[in-house]
């Protein structure tokens, strides 16, 4: 087994010619097929990936996976949607182009909740993605296949996108690292949009340093994306020193304290206890961690603000899916019937529900009450977090209310996921904050994670702290061991 190694280790072996690119790619494809049978992780597996050779670049010659919503030239890019089931782009997303330049090798397109809308990994056009640690559990989503494949050791990393928590939650459920950098650090050009003001590109890996290496190769100002910024003075990989003198974190009492939850499940109790233990561990290793308080009323708005804004932008962003220029052409008399048919047949019920919500909150008579108010509350929440970042290097919080949920208990829909514990990661998208999830333990033999979110443009600091915390625990580079 080779692909369970870190990027640095693989690179050393390639340079020293102890292994070849073909060895890595063949193993990756073999594992992909194995995982496809057991967990249904992929939208498309590439049979003969191109090998551009090994260079000084740490990523050269190393296989990786790409979420199905990235445009990959000449490679099927469906967004896991039937509306694009045969869509093969003629151009690469900017992030893909950069990884191509690094001679990284795409071996598969990973399955996802259709167009990133969904947090379960159960709404992919190819079916449900199962958790590699326990096939009766979900991976969470929407970067379901990417999380599943990295946790299984198909390759050291896979690309994800994150609009609410779509990288960071599945990472926690699969026992790996999920990192979404500051908004605009990685170009979104060529990545299928869900909610443009919340969408982030990012990566899933098995250790923090790998995440830094990959994002170093993906980031940069892009003339095709006006929201990107110049980060040429930032080298995340080189900034990782493990030195954390004078670093300060905080956690939020209203989220982390068990007394906030009525009739907590055993899993929730264990999860929060585990988190408290890890906070003590962190404190005893030189990082100050304070408990802070945030108005519960404000915290309780997060989920609804997210629903209103993300659904509104989604219904707009997906208006290009008509079947006229690309995608299967709808049937019917005249163009409007054809568009209707294409969209009726192409989208899953979950997406249609969200379109209805999005249209409703944007209607002239509703806009002020829903959409504009949601934008205002988003600003209030971000202001509150900005205040925290004046004093703290990051906010540290547990991810979710425990380990991955059972697939037959598919209750993680927007309407039911109302607890702040399930939804607080969305704040990272509201503010465009750098945010990373790392594994922090096991409950009932299933991995759980914690998240660190920092201030905009402070990615290097956030990753360095995450790296330190990762090194205090035993979950680095872990591979899913199926029950």
């Amino acid at each position, binding site marked *: 087994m080779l692909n369970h190694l870190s990027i640095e280790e693989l690179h050393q072996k390639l340079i020293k010619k102890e292994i070849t690119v073909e060895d890595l790619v063949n193993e990756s494809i073999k594992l992909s097929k194995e995982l496809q049978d057991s967990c249904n992780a992929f939208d498309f597996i590439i049979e003969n990936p191109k090998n551009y050779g090994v260079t000084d670049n740490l990523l050269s010659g190393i296989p990786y996976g790409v979420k199905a919503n990235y445009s990959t030239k000449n490679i099927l890019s469906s967004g896991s949607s039937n509306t694009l089931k045969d869509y093969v782009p003629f151009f690469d997303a900017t992030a893909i182009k950069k990884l191509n330049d690094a001679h990284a090798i795409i071996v598969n397109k990973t399955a996802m909740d259709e167009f990133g809308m969904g947090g379960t990994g159960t709404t992919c056009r190819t079916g449900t993605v199962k958790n590699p640690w326990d096939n009766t559990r979900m991976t969470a989503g929407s970067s379901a296949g990417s999380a599943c494949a990295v946790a299984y050791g198909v390759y050291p990393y896979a690309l994800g996108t994150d609009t609410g928590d779509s990288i960071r939650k599945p990472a926690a459920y699969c026992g790996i690292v999920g990192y979404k950098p500051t908004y605009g650090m990685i170009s979104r*050009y060529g990545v299928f949009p869900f909610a443009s003001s919340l969408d982030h590109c990012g990566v899933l890996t098995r250790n923090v340093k790998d995440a830094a290496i990959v994002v170093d190769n993906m980031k940069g100002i892009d003339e095709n994306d006006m929201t990107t910024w110049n980060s040429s003075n930032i080298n995340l990989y080189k900034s990782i020193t493990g030195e954390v003198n004078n670093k300060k974190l905080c956690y939020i009492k209203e989220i982390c304290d068990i007394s906030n939850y009525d009739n907590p499940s055993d899993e929730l109790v264990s999860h929060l206890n585990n988190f408290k233990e890890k906070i003590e561990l962190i404190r005893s290793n030189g990082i100050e961690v304070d408990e802070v308080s945030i108005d519960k009323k404000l915290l309780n708005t997060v989920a609804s603000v997210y629903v209103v804004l993300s659904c509104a932008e989604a219904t707009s962003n997906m208006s290009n*899916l008509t079947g006229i220029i690309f995608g299967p052409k709808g049937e019917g008399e005249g163009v409007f019937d054809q568009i209707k048919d294409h969209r009726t047949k192409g989208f899953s019920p979950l997406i249609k529900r969200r379109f209805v919500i999005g249209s409703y909150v944007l209607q002239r008579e509703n806009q002020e009450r829903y959409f504009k108010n949601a934008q205002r509350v988003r600003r209030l929440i971000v202001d509150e977090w900005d205040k925290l970042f004046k004093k703290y290097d990051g906010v540290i919080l547990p991810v979710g209310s425990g380990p991955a949920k059972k697939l037959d208990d598919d209750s993680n829909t927007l309407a039911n996921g109302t607890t702040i514990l399930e939804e607080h990661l969305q704040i990272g998208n509201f503010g465009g904050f750098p945010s990373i999830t790392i594994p922090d333990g096991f409950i009932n033999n299933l991995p759980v994670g914690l998240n660190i979110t920092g201030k905009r443009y402070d990615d290097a600091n956030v990753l360095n702290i995450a790296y330190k915390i990762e090194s205090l625990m035993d979950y680095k580079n872990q591979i899913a061991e199926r029950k």
Partner: protein
Amino acid sequence: MEEKLHVVIGLEMHCELKSNSKVFSTGKNSYSDTANENISPVDMAFPGILPVLNKYSVEEACKMASILHCDITKYMLFDRKHYFYPDLPKGYQITQCTRPVGINGYIEYDLSNEIKRADITDIHLEEDAAALDHMHNTSTIDYNRAGVPLLEVVTEPCFRSAEEAIAFLENMIKIYQYTNISDADTKRGQVRCDVNISLANENNEYVTPRVEVKNVNSLSNIYNTIKYEEKRQKNAYLNHTEELVQETRRYDEESNTTIRMRTKVDAIDYKYFVEPNIPPYEISSDLLDKITKEIPELPLSRKQRYLNEYNLTLEDANTLIKNKEISDYYDECIKLGIDKIQAANWVTVNILGELNKDNSSIKDFYITPIYLKQIIDSINNNTISSKQAKEIFNKSIVDKKEPKEYLKENAQISDESYLRDLINKIVENNLEQKQAYLNGRTNLFDYFVGQVMKETKGKANPNMTKEILNEVLNK
């Protein structure tokens, strides 16, 4: 009792801008006969594309906002306007409503030599849709036009006749052309208007609901639209022939009428919201300074100058300002010191006559203002006749030689002592004729003139020749 009604018109004028690339993509902005030649993935809304704002178009939009005396925003925002239509690849158009380029402006225009003022509600930058062509059982889409920058100028309901509306539009078209912001070529569909029409009574109270006629594309069609709606609404209001409602109509060229598209009840909710992919775009005061400096003197101001300061006729003034290059040429002549009226005559008659022969541009015209001055100066100091001047003008164009060259050959001999010596010599050699002349054969005077002309190859100044001859013969 007969009510006195008048029509009230507001215009939304869309004009395609000149630029190298489209307003939100790198696709080429250029008219092409070949369909779908000038397109980028952005223009066809392939999944994952993002808009990138064309800075040049922003500057041109600011320039127009400045000409229209608008308040120009410090940070511009763009909005998405949603509707499904096959010519709109993204399913929304990127336009501006939350914070457009400029608001609250005005512009003066003239109608039958009277200055009027149009109030501007706002001016905003947006993208054009693709061009649809409908055949009998199929339609084609040409995405060359998708994403072409459009400037939309929205006026207050400030026009009280079709004539006023047309005069305003003509003035606007000239401004676009003078500033080179747009060719504003109505024949190529570069100017399109939504026309809002209703009736008001003597107290300026609206008596009919507003009717919007969408996408009318030539000045004559706009004129006809207003005239038709005025008649239709008056008839409906006064004779109750049909119920008037707030509605959207379209102009039908064949029948020269307007036809209902939809009423307010089923008006489209465009679900506008701010485009998240274009961050607030700053318009700095430096940029505005730079832009203001690029604005040339505008046609109305030139026309006023020609009429009031130069005392040109209305016809000449109108001819001269029709086109900036001609007006610039004329102004250059005045700068060189050519008489204003003479220059106007030469430009409007001879030069435009020449240019009209082959539709060529005055920019490429061989006779520059400096050359024209050589000719006009020679007329004014009597070295050539106006007939000769026209000949030199023509020869100069054909041979591509400076008029000066011909003036040398053509110049009259007005050197008195030279002529006197010559005449003395001729008379001495023709003493018989002199005697006969003195004896009463006065027609022999012409014989002597002929001799002088023969010797000088016809260049002797005829008046001077006659004077000297008279003197010498009668001595």
